[in-house]
């Protein structure tokens, strides 16, 4: 069947069961948007205020739903505005297909208006970047892009179409092939082994070796990493943890992979890890990390990390094995498959003595009474009053660490946070994407005043699409995490971190047509959150906090994991 090239782009999106795309139009992508106009009853487009917001929204949509996110942007500044969003998705292994257009073939490389080498820029921050110069390639490239984004270790992919390829008189041969079928078809043949849709089957000998190691271990520790969340292996992980009867430390990206309130949970591990997690890491004799790459925020000092322990890494990406921390054993495979095999071969263990050593190190977490509002009080109010299954999108910094510490996440996709790239301004876009993908769930955006200021223009998207997202701003008038380092390590030189400036976030919310609140006490927070939740519209709650609140505990970068700088 002959159809327009742009029509093939839309049909290929439908093949992949895409019903929502995020984006921002412009000159070179006009043809694609013209086609989108004809497909508007099948594909919903969410127009953001800025391409970066669209990129984070597509990423948040992917993280919250487990589906592939899709984001459109034009050439030049449209494409470069995406880059922070692409890198954010890349570092956190989030499957997003970014579609940009570039100038026509005749102008390519001539510094034409809004021309930039988009695929060149995207190369180090994508799993693959395709430049499409021939319209006939569209179906193959689209199918490959989705397969690469979604399979193996997920990640972002960029497709850059030259404008002439999308010309409305370009006709190409096309047959509709649903994605389950097209992943088997010939067009995906050129993909290397690592990208074949079939997941690698874990080596049975590797699994048995780990079962033996487990049988000999007296002090096992489990780390729940981002791979458990991306692989939606939470049920298998929970069964494994309960059978192993071992403490479970959770990384930032692993939030939601294991219930935050489970009796075996010791909380986060690493720089701002709990005492229980970090001490367990130091004293265990078998460390099993699932879908965790031992980043420098977890394995702060690789030489002393779990030095008494055998380290076992379970990961879908072979390139992660031994990258940051040398391991004693590894299993390659998807978290879900490996854990299923382990669960089949494993008896019920009991490690009472070890649990008695570690679990009491968890601190009681009731917020202290105080004459002013504290971060812990804000989060306690949220934990008690917001729905238990509310999705939480955070930005980056102190509020992010507090949110992880004081809130519980119980399913994959409940916590959306930029762990790897640490992108300030990620949260609001991600919340928009998550809300679009989960219209029935409550989405909370937890942010700081510095982060919120970066991308708060997306409040217009919240208002326009009537999204009941509540932005809770931890407003301490400073770039808190940087100030914390300045206080502890840089002799209180508060170099350019004091944010004593506007706007008034309450008025800002109102200017965008949303509800704005300011709270200074716990009681005000309780009342306000109830009101905001009940109103069903978007809102901003500006929580006034002390400038010198700190995230505790803290271990300095590069130090042994139990050398707490702050308790």
């Amino acid at each position, binding site marked *: 069947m002959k159809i327009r090239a742009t029509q093939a782009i839309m049909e290929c999106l439908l093949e992949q069961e895409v019903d929502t795309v995020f984006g921002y139009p412009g000159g070179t992508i006009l043809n694609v948007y013209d086609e989108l106009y004809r497909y508007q009853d099948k594909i919903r487009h969410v127009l953001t205020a800025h391409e970066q917001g669209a990129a984070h929204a597509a990423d948040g949509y992917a993280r919250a739903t487990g589906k592939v996110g899709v984001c459109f942007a034009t050439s030049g500044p449209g494409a470069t505005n995406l880059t922070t969003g692409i890198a954010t998705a890349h570092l956190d292994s989030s499957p997003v297909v970014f579609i940009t257009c570039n100038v026509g073939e005749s102008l390519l490389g001539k510094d034409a208006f809004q021309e930039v080498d988009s695929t060149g820029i995207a190369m180090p921050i994508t799993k*693959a970047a395709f430049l499409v110069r021939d319209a006939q390639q569209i179906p193959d490239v689209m199918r490959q892009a989705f397969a690469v984004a979604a399979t193996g270790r997920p990640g972002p992919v960029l497709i850059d179409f030259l404008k002439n390829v999308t010309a409305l008189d370009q006709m190409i041969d096309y047959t509709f092939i649903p994605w389950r079928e097209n992943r088997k078809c010939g067009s995906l043949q050129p*993909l290397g082994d690592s990208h074949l849709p079939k997941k690698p089957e874990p080596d049975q000998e590797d699994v048995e070796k780990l079962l033996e190691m487990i049988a000999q271990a007296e002090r096992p520790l489990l780390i729940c990493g981002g791979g458990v969340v991306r692989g939606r292996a939470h049920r298998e992980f929970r069964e494994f943890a309960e059978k192993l009867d071992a403490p479970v430390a959770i990384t930032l990206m692993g939030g939601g992979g294991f219930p935050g309130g489970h009796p075996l949970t010791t909380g986060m591990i690493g720089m701002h890890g709990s005492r229980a997690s970090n001490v367990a890491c130091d004293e265990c004799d078998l460390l099993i990390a699932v879908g965790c790459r031992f980043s420098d925020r977890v394995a702060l000092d690789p030489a002393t990390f779990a030095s008494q322990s055998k380290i076992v890494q379970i990961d879908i990406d072979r*390139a992660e094995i*031994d990258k940051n921390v040398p391991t004693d054993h590894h299993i390659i495979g998807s978290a879900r498959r490996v854990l299923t095999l382990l669960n089949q071969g494993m008896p019920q263990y009991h490690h009472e003595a070890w649990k008695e050593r570690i679990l009491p190190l968890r601190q009681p977490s009731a917020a202290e009474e105080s004459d002013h509002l504290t971060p812990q009080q804000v989060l306690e109010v949220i934990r008690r009053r917001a729905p238990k299954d509310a999705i939480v999108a955070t930005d980056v910094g102190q509020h992010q660490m507090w949110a992880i510490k004081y809130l519980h996440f119980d399913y994959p996709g409940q916590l959306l946070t930029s762990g790897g790239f640490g992108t300030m301004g990620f949260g609001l876009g991600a919340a928009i994407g998550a809300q679009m993908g989960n219209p029935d769930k409550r989405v909370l955006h937890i942010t700081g005043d510095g982060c919120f200021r970066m991308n708060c223009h997306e409040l217009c998207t919240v208002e326009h699409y009537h999204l009941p997202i509540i932005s809770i701003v931890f407003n301490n008038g400073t770039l808190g995490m940087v100030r914390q380092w300045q206080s502890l390590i840089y002799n209180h030189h508060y170099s350019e971190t004091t944010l004593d400036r506007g706007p008034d976030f309450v008025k800002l919310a109102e200017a965008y047509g949303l509800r704005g609140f300011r709270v200074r006490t716990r009681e005000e927070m309780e009342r306000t959150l109830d009101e905001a939740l009940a109103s069903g519209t978007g809102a901003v709650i500006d929580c006034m906090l002390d400038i010198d609140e700190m995230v505790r505990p803290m271990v300095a970068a590069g130090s042994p994991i139990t050398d707490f700088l702050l308790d």
Partner: protein
Amino acid sequence: MKQTISVLVENQAGVLNRITSLFSRRAFNIHSLAVGVTDDPSVSRITIIVESGNSVMEQVEKQLNKLVEVIKVRTLEENSYIGRELMILKVSANSRTRPNIMTLCQICGAKVSDISPTSMTMELSDTPDRLDSFQEMMRTFNILEVVRTGVIALQKGGGKI
């Protein structure tokens, strides 16, 4: 330690860039790199020589394997492959020095490809070590220009990567 890596890739624009960026990202220098199409016009073979430790190379090899455009990667073990490089070298020459240069060319197996009243240009294909020693011998005659292709390599025996 010098390592020789042979990579089969899809013959497409941008692939070389993607591969070399994996090395530049880790801030280590590529000693030599040679690319050419294989018997299958859709596939190119890249031979890369880098100076690095084993653990770093293992990382790079794994990262290379992740690239969509990469078909196969193999680090070639020393003595298990045939590695050759082509050098073209131009020296000053006159009637007095020419016979000496010719003698050295014969000893090393170099071919004279161009001659002028004031210069001679030789080509030699051999292992990098032997090219080095030929180049060293030619230094006495004032080398005007040198170009080397970088090593290309294939495994010995009937196996292929």
